[in-house]
């Protein structure tokens, strides 16, 4: 058996996928680290003392220019919507509607100005709100302290305002509620979810806006209108509804301005634009091009507006508003102040001085941020930071010198002014470059990388499919399909590394690995192509065979069509946000359809019916075979399991009427003591039931007989684990105050019991690895000669003493029979449980893993786990039965439908264990099972939470080899029932037939190929699902739901892929380990001194099985 090549091949394929995922992620997911620091008034970057003294009270960092501000955000206000072009004769529905803005800019040029407001991608509302308040570039994943809520943890404008005692009132989009919980002085939130609803939010705001403005009990008022955005989503911009909506906004602004006082600043901004279809989320020109309008009743600007409106990056709003209102700039801001708003009414020199001072503050703040950011993260390139540092220090130096000169009045205005302008432009340059550096690493998709990652994953899928068709155990296969491609890959990586070393560029590990992956894939396809024509020629030599081959291939394709069709539906469902949201119901639906189709197909092919008597045959009547009822019962149990598993679903916010399952909450939260006790007892009983079921399964197949440490562990350790879990649940779910003095004891117990389970489970797994044999060998070679003696010599129990005579009689009879059976009496070794040794190891491992994972979930989800085990068991049986009925010629290859149904069940139970592919649905509690709210590293909680999230992926992937093994395990009872009575000669045949899993050992080459094929098929199906997710995320990156649905789905799917593939490798290597142990066991058996006068018997293992039954596999029921 080739163990290492198989594992290496699978590991290589996994690595190919990982490289693809990594490459795609680096192009698609932009990450940034959130800093917890925040600015405050007393920060040491305040201006020099002489200027400080002039700060009016209530101002920080810079003198306050406005005491109040109104920020009107019109969602998706594209620049074209706000612009007014009187020359246009026939405007489109969205053009020339905001005439009031135009009226203000023309009638009061020093009071009002319109800007192009450049949004940074991703142009989704939540990210934009974050950008508009933190002054930073939020990415899809802002790695912060807390994943569980959407609340902004970073320093932001609202936090600064509140910290400095300003009253902030909000009205509109309820996204703000989640982002800024409890920050508002007063708030009026309206639901934003229903995109079809154009008016609820806007009318709600209009109802409260003017009374609030008139009351004067506020410092900052934010109103977020959603109508325009929703109109875009519903109708698109080019629609009469849009005209109505914009006209309504125009009227709103007109009356709002009437209500404003002189000390109030009005800002009207769009958070992003929209495409021609009304969508947003991406980075196209129309999406990022929003409008910003600034107005105040006191003059703001010292000159009229420029001909073409200036373009202002969105982040610039934050420092500008902060300094205008006299609060510190938020810590992570990277925006640049809009200097023209700070010119004041004085002469040009004092204006320039004023601007210089705000630039100075701004630059110092940005520099401080960049310094602290580069300390925690390396994603900003070092050499660029270096250059920024130089720019900054030289500008600051010049600034101090200039200030000294100004103090000493050594400079005259014209020269001074030019110097001031020069310095301002240097600060500007610094700020802009700093922003450019950040933008480059935080806010830009990299399409090339995305396409590259997609291609790599697609090619890996293709490779999996081809290799699974091609797999053969020959050396030449591994040489041409594994060794050479690996060499290609290594050479590719080496060359790339060398090129990097020569050009002195920084080595990007991800790029190198993906190039290596691509090279090795090329190598594989090249060698595959080399093998292919040879085969074709071989077939072409015999024309009749070729035609048969064609027909067979056609039939095989048709057979493939139905499982692949289901897989296709599943992949197609990834492209629709509704289907991703409803996936919890889609997966079981498809699984049920797959199984029903399987049964229907078997029926259609006439596999389920027997033509009975000749009379009925004449009439053409058919009736079912007996086994069909068993199969139908299994199908019904499967359907019931799937339906029941639906009771454990978690909800997503996209389905507002959904109520999360009651079983998800821990028992501790249950008020009703009686219900609590009842549920507790039920859960413990189910755990015990699981242990009982596993033990009786093992006993049935004779795997519980030996006295190896592993078997002892199964006998005694399993109940102990259950006891520990039950105690832990009892302690964890008891009410906190009821125990009083025992509180400390409880604290210890809450930690101790999980650790006991961890310890026991790891001991069990270690035992499994050390000696996975659960076989009891009874060497009866000595006893072959005499009948009675050995029996009397070894009385195994009291029962034997009590019934000695009948026992002896029975034994004599048996021995007589066996003599008849084997014409020439030979030695036998009865190996109890040898026929299911592989499955037994897997079942034990799965049970242990199941215990661990159940511990990490809340108590009542153990019901879901029980369903999981039951459903997997039923699926395996259906697979076995269907296989037996279909009369498959290839016992060593697992059909596609089995693999696909296995994976569908895995994703079904992802949802049925209370998970959803969104961040707020992650069970964070799992990190604290066995820990007291403190973790020294991040690794351990990540592992615990990951294990909790991907529990079903782990169990199904580890159990995947069972798909291959199960039909062999189940082979024995079936064949026995069919032939109840036979001649001794036939019995001999039968003994040979009862080899169960040893059939696999008999042909080790085929066994290893079968494992490889199974692994490749599993990876293919997993990879296809992943590919669908990746393509959906890439193609739909402009979709409204990309950051809410597709990107999290992609992230969960790819993590699930990684976990599944690693667990698959572990499962397969466990089988390999068992195989190793079986080999050594056989060689020991052979070497063991025969003891008696018997000639030393058997030859090396495979041959053993072809010789007339030297090893007698006992019937399972007759264990000792």
């Amino acid at each position: 058996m080739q163990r290492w090549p198989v594992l290496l091949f699978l590991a290589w394929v996994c690595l190919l996928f990982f490289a693809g995922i990594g490459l795609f992620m680096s192009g698609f997911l932009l990450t940034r680290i959130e800093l917890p620091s925040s600015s405050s008034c007393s920060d040491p970057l305040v201006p020099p003392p002489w200027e400080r003294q002039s700060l009016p009270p209530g101002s920080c960092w810079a003198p306050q220019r406005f005491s109040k501000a109104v920020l009107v955000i019109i969602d998706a206000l594209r620049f074209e919507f706000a612009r007014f072009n009187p020359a246009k004769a026939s405007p489109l529905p969205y053009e020339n509607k905001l005439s009031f803005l135009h009226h203000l800019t023309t009638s009061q040029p020093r009071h009002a100005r319109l800007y192009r407001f450049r949004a940074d991608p991703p142009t989704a509302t939540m990210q934009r709100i974050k950008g508009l308040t933190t002054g930073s570039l939020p990415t899809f994943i802002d790695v912060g302290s807390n994943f569980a809520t959407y609340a902004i943890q970073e320093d932001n404008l609202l936090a600064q305002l509140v910290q400095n005692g300003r009253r902030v009132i909000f009205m509109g989009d309820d996204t703000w509620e989640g982002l800024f919980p409890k920050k508002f002085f007063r708030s009026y939130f309206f639901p934003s979810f229903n995109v079809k609803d154009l008016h609820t939010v806007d009318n709600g705001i209009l109802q409260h806006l003017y009374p609030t403005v008139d009351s004067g009990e506020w410092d900052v008022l934010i109103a977020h209108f959603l109508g325009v955005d929703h109109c875009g989503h519903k109708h698109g911009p080019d629609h009469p509804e849009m005209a109505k909506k914009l006209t309504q906004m125009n009227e709103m602004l007109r009356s709002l301005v009437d209500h404003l006082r002189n000390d109030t600043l009005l800002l009207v901004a769009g958070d992003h634009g929209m495409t021609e279809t009304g969508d947003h989320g991406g980075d196209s020109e129309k999406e990022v091009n929003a409008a910003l309008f600034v107005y105040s009743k006191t003059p703001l600007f010292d000159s009229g507006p420029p001909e073409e409106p200036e373009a202002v990056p969105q982040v610039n709003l934050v420092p500008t508003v902060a300094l205008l209102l006299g609060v510190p700039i938020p810590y992570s801001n990277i925006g640049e102040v809009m200097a023209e708003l700070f010119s004041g009414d004085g002469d040009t020199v004092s204006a320039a001085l004023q601007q210089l001072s705000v630039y100075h503050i701004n630059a110092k703040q940005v520099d401080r941020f960049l310094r602290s950011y580069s300390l925690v993260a390396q994603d900003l390139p070092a050499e660029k930071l270096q250059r920024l540092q130089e720019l900054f220090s030289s500008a600051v130096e010049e600034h101090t010198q200039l200030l000294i000169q100004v103090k000493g009045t050594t400079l005259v205005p014209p020269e001074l002014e030019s110097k001031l302008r020069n310095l301002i432009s240097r600060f500007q340059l610094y700020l802009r470059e700093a922003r450019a550096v950040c933008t480059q690493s935080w806010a830009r998709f990299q399409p090339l990388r995305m396409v590259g990652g997609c291609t790599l994953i697609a090619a890996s899928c293709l490779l999996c499919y081809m290799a699974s068709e091609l797999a053969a155990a020959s050396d030449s296969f591994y040489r041409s399909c594994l060794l050479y491609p690996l060499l290609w890959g290594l050479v590719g990586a080496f060359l790339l590394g060398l090129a990097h070393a020569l050009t002195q560029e920084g080595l990007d590990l991800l790029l190198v690995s993906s190039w290596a992956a691509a090279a090795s894939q090329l190598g594989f396809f090249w060698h595959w192509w080399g093998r292919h024509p040879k085969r074709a020629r071989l077939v072409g030599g015999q024309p009749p065979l070729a035609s048969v081959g064609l027909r067979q291939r056609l039939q095989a394709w048709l057979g493939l069509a139905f499982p692949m069709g289901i897989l296709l539906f599943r992949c197609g469902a990834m492209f629709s946000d509704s289907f991703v949201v409803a996936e919890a119901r889609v997966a079981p639906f498809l699984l049920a359809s797959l199984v029903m189709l399987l049964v229907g197909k078997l029926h259609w092919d006439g596999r389920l019916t027997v033509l009975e008597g000749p009379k009925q045959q004449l009439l053409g009547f058919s009736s079912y075979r007996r086994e069909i009822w068993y199969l139908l019962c299994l199908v019904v149990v499967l359907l019931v399991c799937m339906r029941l598993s639906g009771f454990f679903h978690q909800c997503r916010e996209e389905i507002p009427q959904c109520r999360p399952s009651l079983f998800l909450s821990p028992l501790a939260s249950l008020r009703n003591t009686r219900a609590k006790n009842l549920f507790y007892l039920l859960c413990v009983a189910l755990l015990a039931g699981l242990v009982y079921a596993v033990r009786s399964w093992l006993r049935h197949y004779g795997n519980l007989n030996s006295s190896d440490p592993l078997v002892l562990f199964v006998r005694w350790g399993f109940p102990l684990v259950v006891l520990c879990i039950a105690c832990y649940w009892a302690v964890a779910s008891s009410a906190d105050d009821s125990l009083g003095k025992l509180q400390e004891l409880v604290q210890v117990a809450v930690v101790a019991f999980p650790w006991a389970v961890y310890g026991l489970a790891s001991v069990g797994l270690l035992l499994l690895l050390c000696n996975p044999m659960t076989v009891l060998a009874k060497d009866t070679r000595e006893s072959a000669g005499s009948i009675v003696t050995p029996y009397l010599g070894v009385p195994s129990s009291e029962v034997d003493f009590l019934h000695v005579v009948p026992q002896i009689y029975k034994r004599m009879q048996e021995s007589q029979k066996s003599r008849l059976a084997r014409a020439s009496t030979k030695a036998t070794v009865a190996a109890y449980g040898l026929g299911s040794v592989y499955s037994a190891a897997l079942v034990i491992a799965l049970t242990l893993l199941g215990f661990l994972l159940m511990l990490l979930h809340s108590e009542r989800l153990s019901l879901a786990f029980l369903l999981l085990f039951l459903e997997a068991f039923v699926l395996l049986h259906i697979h076995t039965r269907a296989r037996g009925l279909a009369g498959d010629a290839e016992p060593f290859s697992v059909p596609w439908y089995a693999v696909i149904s296995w994976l569908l069940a895995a994703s079904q139970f992802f949802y049925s264990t209370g998970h959803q592919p969104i961040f707020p649905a992650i069970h964070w509690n799992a990190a604290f099972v066995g820990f007291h709210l403190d973790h020294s590293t991040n690794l351990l909680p990540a592992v615990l939470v990951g294990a909790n999230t991907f529990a079903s992926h782990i169990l199904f992937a580890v159990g995947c080899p069972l798909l291959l093994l199960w039909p062999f395990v189940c082979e024995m009872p079936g064949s026995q029932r069919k032939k109840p009575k036979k001649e001794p000669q036939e019995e001999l045949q039968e003994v040979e037939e009862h080899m169960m899993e040893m059939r696999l050992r008999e042909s080790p080459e085929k066994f290893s190929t079968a494992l490889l094929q199974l692994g490749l098929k599993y990876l293919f199906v997993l990879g296809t699902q992943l590919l669908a997710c990746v393509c959906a995320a890439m193609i739909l990156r402009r979709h409204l739901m990309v950051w809410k649905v597709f990107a999290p789905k992609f992230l969960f799917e790819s993590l699930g892929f990684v976990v599944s593939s690693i667990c698959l490798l572990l499962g397969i290597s466990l089988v390999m380990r068992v195989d190793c142990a079986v080999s050594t066991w056989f060689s020991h058996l052979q070497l063991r001194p025969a003891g008696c006068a018997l000639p030393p018997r058997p030859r090396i293992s495979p041959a053993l099985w072809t010789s007339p039954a030297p090893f007698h596999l006992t019937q399972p029921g007759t264990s000792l």
Partner: protein
Amino acid sequence: MKEAEIRKLLAVNLLCVFSVILTAIVPPFFWDGFTVLGTHLAWLCVCSVCVSTLNIILHLVLKPNLSPKRISFAHKISRFLKCCVYFFMSCILFHAIIVLYGAPLIESVTETFLFAVLLSTFTTLQCLCTLGPNIQAWIRVFSKNGATSIWESSLQITTICSIFGAWFGAFPIPLDWDRPWQVWPISCSLGATFGYVAGLIIAPLWIHWNRKQLTYKSR
């Protein structure tokens, strides 16, 4: 002979299609506010009743599987009762399968049951008409090379088409289009109806095109 029979089949099937169309068009003349989507349950009843009556009438008139023996009246009655029981059982069975597939268990039981009745009308009733209450014959017909006449081939095609139609009908339910026909069980019952109609039209055509390959074993 064969051509004539195919023509007869086509005529019968077109009559069925016509009746299905009429169930959507005629009732509004008598019943104010009747629409297929708006008063879906009523339409389900009307459609089931119409299709089943038509099928029973056609069966009585045409008698495609006329048995040579004369059957006693008591036998006929028992046969009829058996058919009723079978039909009812198939409704229950379909209801159970639909629920197991994910339909709500407690809410909208009426809708689910009427949908099951419709599906039974399109599948079980046809079988009962063509084959009688004879499970063995059913099993034979629904396997490869099991059909012994064009009527049975037609039965195969319409039944499978109806069930697939209902299956495909479940696909639009999760979509967020907010259309009235996405409500349970409208899309599924419409899917089943379209499948049935398609099956009725496809069956004679398919049999016509494959008449060379179709060699029916004589009884």
